[in-house]
């Protein structure tokens, strides 16, 4: 069953069509990637999915809800969480607090119970802290909870961002270049983490990635974008040998040379 389906989604900025008639289907429980050269419209596509941009045309369905016209926070409440290309943690908050912010839509505190510290409030907060600790264990950050997010090393910040996204108990996790700037050891740890997110927590994953090693290793299906359009789609082996894809990345001349050599 398709968890996410977009039809003919188009997003324009003035004369530039950043996302052009994207048709895209994502199956429940899969791990898929979107790749493409810089400026292909991948992040813009993510931003239309999460409600940061409103597409001019087309529709987006997520498990029988239409997403077009909803605000980012409403879309998150429906079960889509994301991370950002440039890490966007709440730097002056601690790691635990960052994760608790991710739980915001799930917590049912009202002003009265907050002011009077009702039993319900306290038990919910305790549970929230408990879940935050579990999430920190899950992404391998046990014991860092009281550090300010901005003081953590880069790789750890990426993991905080993933924990924060998972805190909303999403059904779909959108990762925007999650391994950018990581060394090979960190990258393979990240790949293992993504697998566990899918296998242990049942979260469907869609990622934008430039590291072909990561893409080929983890993706069940790959979608390739160039100039806002979907130019190819398929399993990793199909994409690896697709002429259009190689052209998009290397340019027409280089691609034909490469194919001739091959």
């Amino acid at each position, binding site marked *: 069953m398709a968890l996410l389906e977009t039809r003919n989604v188009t997003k324009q900025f003035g004369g530039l069509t950043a996302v052009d008639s994207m048709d895209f289907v994502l199956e429940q429980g899969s791990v898929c990637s979107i790749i493409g050269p810089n400026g292909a419209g991948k992040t813009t596509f993510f931003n239309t999915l999460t409600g940061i941009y409103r597409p001019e045309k087309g529709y987006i369905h997520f498990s029988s809800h239409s997403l077009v016209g909803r605000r980012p926070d409403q879309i998150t409440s429906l079960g889509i969480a994301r991370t950002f290309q440039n890490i*966007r943690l709440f730097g*002056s908050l601690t790691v*635990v607090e960052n994760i608790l*912010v991710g739980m*915001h839509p799930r917590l049912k505190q009202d002003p009265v119970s907050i002011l009077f*510290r009702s039993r319900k409030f306290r038990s919910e907060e305790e549970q929230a802290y408990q879940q935050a600790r579990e999430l920190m264990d899950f992404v391998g950050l046990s014991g860092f909870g009281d550090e300010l997010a901005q003081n953590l090393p880069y790789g750890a910040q990426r993991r905080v961002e993933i924990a924060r996204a998972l805190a909303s108990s999403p059904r779909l996790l959108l990762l925007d270049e999650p391994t950018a700037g990581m060394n090979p050891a960190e990258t393979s740890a990240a790949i293992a983490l993504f697998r566990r997110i899918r296998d242990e927590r049942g979260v469907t994953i869609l990622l934008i990635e430039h590291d072909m090693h990561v893409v080929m290793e983890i993706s069940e299906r790959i979608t390739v974008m160039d100039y806002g359009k979907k130019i190819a789609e398929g399993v990793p082996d199909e994409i690896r040998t697709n002429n259009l894809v190689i052209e998009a990345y290397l340019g027409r001349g280089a691609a034909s040379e490469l194919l001739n050599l091959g």
Partner: protein
Amino acid sequence: MKTRWNSLLASLGSLRTRLSIGKAPYILTISLIVVSTLWVFIDPRNLIAFLLFLTSAWLVYSLPMKRSVKIILALLIALVIVPVLGVRNIFYLEVIFQISVFAALALGLNIVVGFAGLLNLGYVAFYAVGAYLWAFFGSQQPFLLNAIPGTAAPNVNFFLPGDMFFLFLLLGMILAAVVGVLLGLPVLRVRGDYLAIVTLGFGEVIRVLANNLDKPLNLTNGPQGITPIQRPTLATWLQDGLNIILTPLVGHPASEGEFYNLFFYMMALLVIVLVIFMVTRLDDSKIGRAWAAIREDELAAASMGIPVVKLKLAAFAVGASFAGVMGVLFAASRTFVSPESFNFMQSIGVLSMVILGGLGSIPGVILGAGVVVILNLQVLQALSLWLSALRQSDAVIPIINFAWRNLSNQLDPAKYQRMLFGLILIIMMIYRQEGLIPARRRKREKGKDLTGNENGEQAPAAEVKNGAA
């Protein structure tokens, strides 16, 4: 220069550690309270004695002591020593009342600016809304709607009984919150600098409205302002009872005016306690975390499922409501309001208290209010008095041979309020952006400590580390 500054900080830090060991903080604080109280009592006009007294109150907060001892000392100072000294020299009560009013305003603004990160330069407008609400209903103004401003007939009854004041504290709070939301709805679409400019405009709009709403219907009595405004009646048995205690302590029975000053001081204190209670609890909940998230990164906050507009409106409304209460209190305590009390300088003044004390830091903001009010009301005044005394003497500045009496009146320090705010803002931005007492995040990965005891004992160690770094 930089290293000398650092070594000074480091030595201050080590002094702090030495004062934090064992019984030292108790002895120091209590003896300072006793000495300064006696000094102020004997010499009520001495500024240094009064500053020393305020410092002792500060030590109660800042030195590490048992929580119970701190609470007892704080109650003793707030409920016994200040009233007695205040009746002894009514000016101190005025200073402390102003500190409490501005501390409540600064705490409210701190929610908007410090927690949610929305720069509001027209905050004093909400204060005006509360003040004019009680000024209108608590005076004869409703009967004078068609009167020409400034020619009010003296023999008109008051519209409402004075005791309605207590109800209007609540109404002022609600009305200011509603105005906050109404302002917020269109305004919160803009961010950062633009928000600051729009709120600045709003603050001026309210002041100009107050200035001009004397026609077609005379609602505000224009630039003359509204007076007299009623105060609630104080029970005579309460006054007599208090006088039995106060007379031997102070040397004379307190007058009715002094009782009102005491009353409004206590009301301001009560509001502050309520405000602190609400602010700390809101801060430590999903609402406070959401405000911090919006302040740090609005887009990321929205992507985490936080309804940004709703929470910004909440911040505006809560901040405004505190100003509304204080406005009602202000109108009653002064028995007079006029548009001039709510000019732009007041907004800047409150903002500089928040920035001086530390954005987002509750004790910091209160300290900021104290420092700014004292600088304004006492230090600048004292300098003015000193200069005018010099001007009347035959003294001459030695080397340049300049007679003090030729000094221009323009150089009166009491007129330097604006320069003072400006200097505070500039110096803080350069040397200590996080304020006198920076806001700290709670450290409790291991779960929540709901007893309210937030590792106050470890605070000095952290301070020393910062000082030495």
